[in-house]
Structure formats: structure tokens, C-alpha cells
């Protein structure tokens, strides 16, 4: 299957723009609203209207009881028809409340809606200065004058339709990426799913059981993995890496490289090759809990099922080549580069488990401390396919531990290692695993040392309680260190039980560190290829934490799952669903409509310094090979941040230019007509 690439046509205008706006003489109509008594009881509306009438270019100045009423709106319309008014100013309530009403009115009369200027004399004046009528009056006049000044230079803003490419890219095939890819495909959008590992499913496939229901993750995820692998609209690329991304919302061009597996797709997954391969090494996927060969499949249920040869460790004995019944092994395979066009991108690159060796007092990874492991390793130990046969065995001597101590917040909530955040998931998985161990080995003491137990939400406190009920011991205190007796090799966890103020030494046959979830390896380069910003913790940053937690800083690029910050599976799935819906919307619609409220660049002034690009968060400014900037009209968010950094005032946001603002500022600073 190949995805049909739709031809992207040029953008098209939605509204007609009258080019005369630059040259014609402004004829301004001013309307002051009483708002019943709301404005009129504080502000002398007649006087204000009168004053407006005296300002240059004002051809009509009136006041009326309710400007938003039908007759009020009609007054505005009439002025256009009768007096040739080409810019309107209404001094009434806020832009949010009725600004749109009047803008729509003038649009109906054939004027561009951006020629209306709303002046807020209610919320900003009469309502807040009820006791100071004199000053309120003066202020209202100033506000109005500022509005008129602003109106004088208002320019037309066009709205454009931009065609979008009906295809999407998903980066990362963990649970979040799979969910997003599947959701979009179900909406009829062709999806390219790019995964860097040889298999899909991400961390979830490595877990033993998932909280809060203690379900088998393989069972819950396999309908989705199979669904994705077999979906006619999804093209899956494993062992693949993003090389380059260009373009913006609606039209991206993505280049990625697919590394060779050295096994062709006709592999039947019979396993003959691996069985005879002489090279054996610890499996990364299993965190060293099992062995794999140089030609291997990460785990039995792995998708794609095709085997892969690990070129680095292979000794090229050719056994596999010769033994394969279908001649699938092919050492001549080479990496392949593919370029695709997509309209939206969903990034679902997931997380990594924090490496606790940084916290030296816990001695993780040091000689003699083999029995200090992380929760992910414990998950692998417990899992049905593990080397230990799902038993919990001490790495040092293979015995079942009589006491297990779990340490919480390892690498989270820790200013010294630079991770201030609470991972929010580790309390839940520690409680889960503690309960599982206690159930398996009732004679084993299981202790969780915590600072706070954070198990909010439906079913999670219940999980916590169930762990308490079966005898998991909770100690409120963060262990200071794990000490090893050099004579006996015995480990002890030193902790204060803060609730009873007792310093304790806990004997521990096995110590399990609840390590934080941190940004995945390689996220830096990927982030810069995408031109999206990262949070201080290194995750990709959402556009707005409340209102848009799935959009990235750049339009058209969405975030799904833990790449935006730590989450559990349910949250990752929900997040991915939201990302998929938002990413799909413009593609399903086929176009995006955009007001061209964007900056223009005066190339006579521009000195190609590139400063505007550095502050533009949505990466809407492109520099060509000479360093000459141009504004990507689709990506621009109309923030105007590029303006003040420009040393030559070359870049100016339409209708918010320095020049236009100056006129308004003059009036409001007292430098206007009234003061003279």
C-alpha cells in the first residue's frame, strides 16, 4: 500500500481586499453608546461625541442609547451608505462583547471587518470610575481619541484558505503513537508511523501487569498493535529515524531513514536462525533479564514479527543465511531514505526511565549493589516471559528475597538532580508491584519508603488501600542511603520514619528504585528538527497547559502521551486521542482558513540579522540562504513578538505596527489634542 499524495494547490483568498485602503482619505464614523445608564450616568456621552466630531477625518459623531440594538447597528450601516464612511469607531463595551457585532455589520456593507475599531468606555471607564465623573469624562475622551487615531490607519486584512495535505505522520509507536495513528486512520487519513526500535508498543509491552486493574498489558495492547499493523491506511516503518522536517501546518515535507533489518519481509518468524546463531548477549528489551542472539526478535509477540540482525554484534558466520528455509536473511540490505508529504505531525516519542546512578547514595549499578534494581527491571522479572519464570529473584544469588524495600521519588522531586516535578506514576506502579510481590510471597516483607503517596483518581486510592490490607508496609521518609556491609554483602536502607521520628535501618534483600520518567534519549535533536520548543525538564512543551495540552509550540505539530510529560497509560491514551482529533481536523476539512494578521517585512530596511526568527516561538520565520527572512503566513500566530527585536523596524505586524500604535499611545499619554 502506498499513500496517495494529494496535490497541494496554491492558497486562495476568501475575501476580496480593496487595494485602495492605502490611498483613500479616511472617513471615520464615531458612535458613542449610553448603554442605558451604564455609561451615560458616569460619562457625559454628548460631550464626548461632540469632542469626537472635532477630530480630524471624523465625518460623523453620534451618541445613542443602545448601539448594539438593531437601530444602533443600523446607524453604523447607514453612515457607510450615506456618508461614505470607511472606518468606524464605536465607544461602548469591550471588543469581546460587541466588537464582533459592529465588525460584522460593516462587513455586510462591503468593508473589511478589520476597519472597525472598538473603544471600551464601559469596562475600562464608566464602570470603574463611577465616583470620579470628571476624570472619567476626560478619560473617555482620551480613549475615544486614541480609537479614532487608531482607526485612521487601519488596514484591510485578508482571510485565506490554505489547502492541506491529507496525510499525517506519527513519530513513535508506543501506546500513544499507536492510538493516535489508529484514530486518524479511522477518520480516513493516511498515516505514516515511524518507530526507531525494531518493534512497536513501546514501554507498555514491557510491563508485567498494568494498574489499577492489574490487567496483562500484552492482552490489552495487542488488538491495537495488530489493528495498526494491518490497517490499510497506516504505513508502518520500524527501525526508522526522522532526518528532516520542512514546512508548516497543512503542508510538511518529512524525510526519514529506514535502517536495514537484514531480514526480508518474507521471514516467517520460525526462529531457526536465532536457534543456531552462535552469538548470545543480554536482551536490552528485557533489561538483561533474558538472553538474545545476534539475529533475534525482541520478544515473542513482537510486531512486526520479522526477525532482525544486530550488525554490531554479528560475527558474520553466515549460519543464519544458510539455515533460513525461506532465504529471508540478506546481508546486502541497505538503509533507505523516504520523503513524504503530510499535513499534520503527531509526536509520541514517549519517555525513558531515569538512570538512578546519578544519586550516588543509592549506589545503583555499582559493584556489590546488584540487588538494587529499578521498577522497570522488576516488571521484566515479573512478566510471564521472563528468564526467572515470573519469580522475583535477587540478581546477586538468584534467591527469593525475604525483604523488599522500594524507594520512591528517585530522580523526581529532587532539585539536586534538576528534576523538580513529581512523575505522578511511580507511586501507582510501586503500590501495584508491592502488592503483587506480597501476594506472591506472603512471607516476604515489602516496604515502600515514600515522601507522599500520590495515588489520586478513581480506583487508585483503592489500589493503595488493597496493598495496605495485604500487609505492604508504608514508611514515610526518603531513604538517605543504601549501605552495604562489605563483610557480608548485606544491604540496609537508612531512612527516618518521619511520622514517629525514628531513624531506621531496614534490612533489604532487594531494593527497588521507583525511578522517574524522563524525556527520551535523542529528544533534543528531534525537537530541533521539528522546530518545537521544550519545557525546562526537556519534554516537548505544549502550547497551553490548560487549553491546548496537545498542540506543540508550532502549528500542525501535536504531542501525544508521555513526550509532553509523565503520564500513565490511560492518560497517554486520552492525550493521544485529543492529539489525533486536533491533527485530523484540518486534514478532514481539506483546508485551513486563516486571517492574514501577520507581519510584513520591509526589505529595504531589513539587514538580514535574523533576530526576528530567534524570538518567534511558532517558528514562522524562515531565512533563505542569504539570511533574508520571510513570514510563513500559515504558521504565524500574530503575536507580534518579532517586532521589538528588529533593529530597523523592518518587520511590522499589520494593524499593530509601531506607527499605528504610536498614534494611539500619543492620545493616551496625554500628548493628544485635549492637553493642548
Amino acid at each position: 500500500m502506498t499513500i496517495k499524495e494529494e496535490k497541494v494547490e496554491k492558497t486562495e483568498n476568501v475575501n476580496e481586499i480593496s487595494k485602495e485602503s492605502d490611498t483613500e482619505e479616511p472617513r471615520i464614523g464615531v458612535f458613542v453608546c449610553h448603554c442605558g445608564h451604564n455609561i451615560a450616568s458616569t460619562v457625559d456621552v454628548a460631550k464626548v461625541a461632540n469632542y469626537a466630531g472635532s477630530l480630524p477625518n471624523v465625518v460623523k459623531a453620534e451618541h445613542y442609547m443602545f448601539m448594539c440594538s438593531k437601530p444602533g447597528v443600523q446607524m453604523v450601516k447607514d453612515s457607510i451608505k450615506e456618508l461614505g464612511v470607511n472606518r468606524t469607531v464605536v465607544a461602548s463595551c469591550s471588543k469581546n462583547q460587541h466588537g464582533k457585532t459592529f465588525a460584522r455589520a460593516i462587513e455586510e456593507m462591503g468593508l473589511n471587518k478589520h476597519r472597525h475599531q472598538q473603544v471600551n468606555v464601559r469596562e475600562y471607564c464608566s464602570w470603574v470610575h463611577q465616583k470620579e465623573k470628571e476624570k472619567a469624562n476626560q478619560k473617555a475622551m482620551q480613549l475615544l481619541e486614541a480609537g479614532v487615531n487608531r482607526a485612521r490607519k487601519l488596514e484591510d486584512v485578508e482571510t485565506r484558505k490554505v489547502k492541506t495535505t491529507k496525510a499525517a505522520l506519527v513519530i513513535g509507536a508506543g501506546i500513544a503513537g499507536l492510538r493516535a495513528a489508529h484514530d486518524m486512520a479511522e477518520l480516513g487519513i493516511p498515516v505514516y508511523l515511524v518507530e526507531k526500535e525494531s518493534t512497536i508498543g513501546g514501554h507498555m509491552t514491557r510491563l508485567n501487569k498494568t494498574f489499577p486493574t492489574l490487567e496483562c498489558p500484552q492482552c490489552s495492547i495487542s488488538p491495537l498493535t495488530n489493528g495498526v499493523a494491518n490497517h490499510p491506511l497506516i504505513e508502518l516503518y520500524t527501525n526508522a529515524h526522522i532526518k528532516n522536517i520542512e514546512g508548516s501546518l497543512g503542508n510538511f515535507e518529512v524525510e526519514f531513514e529506514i535502517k536495514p533489518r537484514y531480514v526480508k519481509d518474507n521471514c516467517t518468524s520460525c526462529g531457526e536462525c536465532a536457534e543456531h546463531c552462535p552469538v548470545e548477549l543480554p536482551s536490552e528489551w528485557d533489561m538483561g533479564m533474558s538472553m538474545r542472539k545476534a539475529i533475534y526478535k525482541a520478544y515473542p509477540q513482537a510486531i512486526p514479527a520479522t526477525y532482525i540482525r544486530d550488525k554490531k554484534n554479528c560475527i558474520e558466520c553466515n549460519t543464519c543465511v544458510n539455515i533460513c528455509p525461506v532465504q529471508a536473511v540478506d546481508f546486502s540490505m541497505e538503509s533507505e531514505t523516504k520523503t513524504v508529504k503530510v499535513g499534520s505531525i503527531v509526536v509520541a516519542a514517549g519517555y525513558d526511565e531515569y538512570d538512578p546512578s546519578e544519586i550516588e547514595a543509592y549506589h545503583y549499578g555499582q559493584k556489590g549493589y546488584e540487588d538494587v534494581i529499578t521498577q522497570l527491571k522488576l516488571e521484566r522479572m515479573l512478566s510471564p516471559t521472563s528468564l526467572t519464570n515470573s519469580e522475583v529473584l535477587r540478581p546477586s544469588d538468584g534467591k527469593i528475597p525475604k525483604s523488599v524495600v522500594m524507594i520512591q521519588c528517585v530522580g523526581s522531586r529532587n532539585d539536586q538532580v534538576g528534576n523538580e516535578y513529581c512523575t505522578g506514576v511511580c507511586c501507582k506502579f510501586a503500590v501495584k508491584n508491592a502488592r503483587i510481590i506480597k501476594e506472591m510471597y506472603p512471607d516476604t516483607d515489602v516496604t515502600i519508603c515514600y515522601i507522599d503517596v500520590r495515588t489520586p483518581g478513581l480506583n487508585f486510592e483503592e489500589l493503595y488501600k488493597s496493598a495496605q490490607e495485604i500487609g505492604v508496609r508504608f514508611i514515610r521518609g526518603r531513604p538517605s542511603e543504601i549501605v552495604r556491609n562489605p563483610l557480608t554483602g548485606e544491604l540496609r536502607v537508612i531512612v527516618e520514619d518521619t511520622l514517629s521520628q525514628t531513624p531506621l535501618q531496614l534490612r533489604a534483600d532487594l531494593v527497588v528504585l521507583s525511578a522517574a520518567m524522563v524525556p527520551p534519549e535523542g529528544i533534543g535533536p528531534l525537537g530541533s528538527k521539528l522546530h518545537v520548543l521544550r519545557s525546562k525538564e526537556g519534554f516537548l512543551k505544549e502550547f497551553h497547559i490548560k487549553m491546548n495540552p496537545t498542540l506543540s509550540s508550532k502549528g500542525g505539530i501535536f504531542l501525544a502521551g508521555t513526550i509532553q510529560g509523565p503520564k500513565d497509560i490511560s492518560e497517554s491514551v486520552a492525550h493521544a486521542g485529543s492529539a489525533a482529533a486536533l491533527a485530523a481536523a484540518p486534514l478532514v476539512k481539506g483546508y485551513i482558513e486563516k486571517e492574514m494578521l501577520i507581519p510584513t517585512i520591509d526589505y529595504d530596511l531589513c539587514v538580514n540579522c535574523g533576530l526576528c526568527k530567534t524570538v518567534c516561538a511558532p517558528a514562522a520565520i524562515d531565512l533563505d540562504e542569504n539570511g533574508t527572512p520571510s513570514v510563513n503566513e500559515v504558521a504565524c500566530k500574530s503575536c507580534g513578538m518579532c517586532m521589538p527585536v528588529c533593529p530597523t523596524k523592518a518587520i511590522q505586524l499589520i494593524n499593530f505596527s509601531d506607527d499605528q500604535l504610536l498614534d494611539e499611545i500619543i492620545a493616551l499619554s496625554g500628548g493628544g489634542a485635549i492637553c493642548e
Partner: protein
Amino acid sequence: MSECEVIDEEIKEKIQNIVVFMCNECGQGSANTAGVARMAYEPAIRIVRVQCTGQIGPIQIMDALNNGADAVACVGCCIGACHFFNGNLLSMHRIKLMKKLFKELGYSDQFVNQYTSRAAEGETAVGDFEDIVERLATAIKEEGTIKDGC
């Protein structure tokens, strides 16, 4: 707040125009909420609607002061909640530099300030306005108005 009341009338009379650039999101929102709730504040406050505080630079600030404003302030969204990603931080940084410059030139650094507000809470905007006036009044008391310094 209470200190606001002790500002003597004489100084208050000197404060006529304070230009406040408020962003289109939380800034405007909070000022509108304050209005709806009829929360009184100093009439000298003159609000300019801009897209984002990140749009305001020394040009606008100096334009205002040169044309007679007694002080200038920018009011944006809360840190981390900027609707244009990080415009408020950019502005904050810029205003910090401007304050430094003012000080070096021998002016009070209270003629320009940066604030945040929340759209749903008029109090935040009014609190900002009160603080602007208070700081300005103190500055005027100690060092005179910016016009005196000219």
C-alpha cells in the same frame, strides 16, 4: 492597599496618564472582568490592547513617556500561561533591562513595570493597577516625576 490611601493628594494630582499595555488574552480579560465587577481603580490608567506583551518594546514605552505618560506598564498572562508561548517572559526580560537602563540614566526604575493577571480575576488587574500607582507615587515622592527629570 491601605498604603494606597495614604498617598497624598498632591502627588496623586501629578499622576494623570499611565499607559498600560495589556495583552489580548489574560490582560484584556482581567480588565474586563474588573469592569464587570465595578472594581474601582485610579482613572489615570489608560489601557492599550496589544496582541501580546512580547510585542511591546522600548519604542512603545519611550513613545508613551515622551508623549507625557507618567509611567508605563505591561500586563500579560501568568508565567507559563502565555497564549503565545512565552511572550510574557520575553517582555519581563526586556522590562528588567529597561529598568536597569533607567536607573543608570538616573531615573527611577518604577516608571516602567511588568505584571501578570488572570482573565477570570478582576482583582489581579486591579491589584496590578494599584501597585503601579503606589510604586509611581513612591517614586515621585522620592525622586520626582519623569517630567521633572527631563
